[in-house]
């Protein structure tokens, strides 16, 4: 447990920084940015915990998105209609952009005249793209389900 704690805190810290950084890009107000950071930290902590329990990346991401969405829903009196957006900002660090890039670079490599290990490259790229699709679906569903069930206000 104590061996795992520094890694968990590391992931939470950089999840918070990534969520807050993208919060600035999305033009969240300065008062909302700490909430974005907190949502990012929570999401990454849950996902890291899930991965440590040997869950799949997609399963851990789904759990993290659900927990984040529920947590901001619990704060909806404070956050108001912004709560869904804060949850989304918190989940941005889990968007598998690097997997997406790797998958496309893998497919590009297959277009070379005589690619070495074409089958391996194809399988790796396909695996990456499948992970992208399922992880994005996990984030979308994880955010949407609590917001729908708890009837978060949009206005």
């Amino acid at each position, binding site marked *: 447990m104590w061996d795992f704690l520094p890694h968990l805190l*590391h*992931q939470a810290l*950089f*999840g918070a*920084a*990534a*969520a*807050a*950084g*993208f*919060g*600035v*890009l*999305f*033009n*969240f*107000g300065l008062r*909302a940015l700490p909430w974005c950071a907190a949502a990012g930290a929570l999401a*990454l902590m849950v996902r890291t915990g899930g991965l440590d329990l040997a869950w799949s990346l997609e399963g851990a991401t789904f759990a993290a998105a659900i927990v984040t969405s529920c947590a901001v829903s619990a704060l909806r009196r404070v956050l108001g*209609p*912004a709560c869904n*957006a804060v949850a*989304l900002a918190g*989940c*941005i*660090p889990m*968007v598998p*952009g*690097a997997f*997406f*890039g*790797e998958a*496309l*670079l893998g497919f*590009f*490599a297959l277009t070379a005249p005589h690619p070495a290990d074409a089958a391996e490259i194809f399988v790796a790229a396909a695996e990456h793209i499948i992970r992208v699709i399922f992880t*994005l*679906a996990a*984030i*979308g*569903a994880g*955010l*949407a389900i609590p917001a729908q069930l708890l009837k978060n206000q*949009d*206005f």
Partner: protein
Amino acid sequence: METGDDPVVIRHRELERYANTALKAGRIMMESGASVSVVHRGITMIARGFGVETIGLRSGYTSIAMTVHVADQTITRMLQVGRLGVNHRLDLAVRQLCARAERGGMSVEEVEAELARLVRETPRHAPWFTALAVGLACASFGRLLGVDWLAFGPVWLAGAIGQYIRHHLLHRGVNIFIVAGAIAFLSATLGGLGAIALQSATVQLAMMASILLLVPGVPSTNAQTDIMDGYPTMGSARAVWVLMIMLFAATGIWFAEELLGMRS
């Protein structure tokens, strides 16, 4: 009777003003990153505040159309939508205006003036501040991916420079896909060169982390939200847009890796 005195024409003109004002609010929300269902509800709330009934709404990727009805008069109007981005504060402010307008008591002129004021006065972070924040986000993404500490600074710098230049290119009206390809090439090259100079062991990961500012996270989740909310056409259009951005970004990083000899 002159056409200008015809009560049907007069009523149509009134309805047209209601529809255009409600559509303007919808356009701002859509351009600020709202999902289709939120845009439709906002438009409907404003129309209801004016005392008209919304019979139908349709959102495409570049336009919104609505049909409004009151006292046997019905019209359909469509408004062009510009580039879809994310602007949380503006989106939230327009949603609040929709709620106020729905309660009634606001004229078309008042809603129009308030919309114009919100677009003009809603604050945005300074470009340099956004660039630093986005650079930090890229570097943080890098740490989550396993980039070593030596590459942290170069990724931060590469992401910040990439965001600053992207901001200016988009303001000059350069095509968003070309911008994605060019910024991916620039940021990946800068991040890679910095990581090599500092003898990082994770140069390729650093190059990938440097371009993560381009990953369209909100549109990709909005695509799914739209499909789940019953708007598969819009959701599919958003998904194709996301794929195109990533294709251009991957092309940019591919050229950067070739330039730095990482592909051999």
